[in-house]
């Protein structure tokens, strides 16, 4: 097989206060895949995400993105390749206008002038926010801000898009719109979530992180219908949702 876009091997990490969050995580994501990273609160999901672009440094083990190891010398390139969309769009958006904010990433990579503007508008187009380019981010709705946050990362043309709880705090319409956008993108996606229907809808493959290790890696349908596994790792389907009843309704 080709070099995985994301290659995590034996990753372990303990916070400076001694709390160990990861105990040897192995994870491979290949080009074009959409993978859901599931797990209960406190399983170490966010900690794992912060390793993927080198914000945190592995205590043991390694992370590589398309063969490039995540080490200090490569950080700039790694952060271009790995686009992280954080849970709270307000953490990500801090410029006076949407346009400036989307331009922030590519201009850090040295882009200027017309090429930069074009990149910005392309990214905003992909998330359907091109009409809002000159608005201040804090005047947008939450769902719009989340989409702009996705655009700020898409503008860097990442090889893998990492989304931390993309559906949190979205109303059903915004949630569906974001799903359509994510499905339309031609990019590898790792989606961290405990929104299981969303994972089922968007990601053919799921991995479950629990207590700092990957406990399952398989088809999302198989994971969600494995009742013993689900209850063992504090995963629960929302009331009234049954993957068995919805498997035929999955969009292609």
């Amino acid at each position, binding site marked *: 097989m080709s070099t995985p876009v994301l290659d995590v091997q034996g990753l372990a990490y303990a*916070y*400076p*206060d001694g*709390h160990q969050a990861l105990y040897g995580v192995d994870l491979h994501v290949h080009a074009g895949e959409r993978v859901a990273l599931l797990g209960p609160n406190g399983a170490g999901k*966010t900690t794992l995400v*912060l390793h993927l*672009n080198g*914000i945190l440094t592995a205590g043991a083990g390694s992370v590589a993105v398309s063969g490039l190891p995540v080490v200090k010398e490569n950080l*700039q390139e790694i*952060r*271009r390749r*790995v*686009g*992280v969309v*954080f849970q*709270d769009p*307000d*953490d*990500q*958006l*801090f*410029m*006076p206008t949407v346009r400036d904010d989307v331009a*922030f*990433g590519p201009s*850090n*990579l040295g882009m200027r002038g017309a090429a930069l503007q074009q990149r910005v508008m392309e990214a905003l187009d992909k998330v359907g926010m091109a009409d809002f380019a000159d608005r201040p981010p*804090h005047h947008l709705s939450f769902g719009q801000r989340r989409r702009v946050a996705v655009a*700020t*990362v898409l503008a*860097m043309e990442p090889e893998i898009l990492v989304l931390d709880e993309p559906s949190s705090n979205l109303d059903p319409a915004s949630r569906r719109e974001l799903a359509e956008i994510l499905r339309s993108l031609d990019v590898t996606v790792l989606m961290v979530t405990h929104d299981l229907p969303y994972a089922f809808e968007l990601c053919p493959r799921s991995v479950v992180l629990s207590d700092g290790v990957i406990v399952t890696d398989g088809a999302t349908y198989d994971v969600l219908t494995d009742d013993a596994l689900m209850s063992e790792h504090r995963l629960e389907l929302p009331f009234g949702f049954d993957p068995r009843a919805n498997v035929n309704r999955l969009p292609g």
Partner: protein
Amino acid sequence: MGAGHGHKLHFHGHSPVHRAPAHLKILGLLVFMLVVVATPREWFAVFGVYLALLVGVIALSRVPFGYIGRRMVVEVPFVLFALLMPLVATGPRVDVLGLGLAEAGLLAAWGLLAKGTLGVIASLTLAATTEPRDLLVGLERLRVPAQLVQIIGFMIRYLDVVTDELRRMRVARESRGFQSGGLRSWPVHARTAGALFIRSYERGERVHLAMLSRGYQSSAAPHRKTKGTADQGSGSLR
């Protein structure tokens, strides 16, 4: 994330210094500082006595000296300023290691350093031995205006929240390839500060609304407040 519990300046303990009433400690710090500041800087030996006094109190509180020492880096800007004074002051000069230094400047630098350092050590000792909540109660007992105490309380309550917000913004920035350092990163820092200010301001409004919807009356004249409502005020600020 790995945020620590309790306040960063506080050192948990049960020594007599920890147990002493907060208002007495605040008063003690105030009197001590007034005396230190009023002491003529030529009385070199007296400053030694002050230092010995502080060392005694710290030893009694069983707070490790290193704990206080590490936190003294907050004084560094003052130290730099003090070190500059002998170089820029005018007047008679003395030779120190081949440098012509102004006598008046040397003396002024000594005064600033000695008094500043004593102040920093004393304040850190108070902070290390007193819970923020107790400090607020102490200020209230000293009849500091209730609104002022509330403002300080809010600051303590939300400092960590805002710091955390700033940290998450920094992580999000760096994730998009931003590297801090150099003059060119300043506009980015300025915008971050601006965004943080607006957000903190908005959070303040939300907090205020939440307080109002729970029956808080900010317009009540402070002097008409009963003991009960004052306690409630600081109680909700933990």
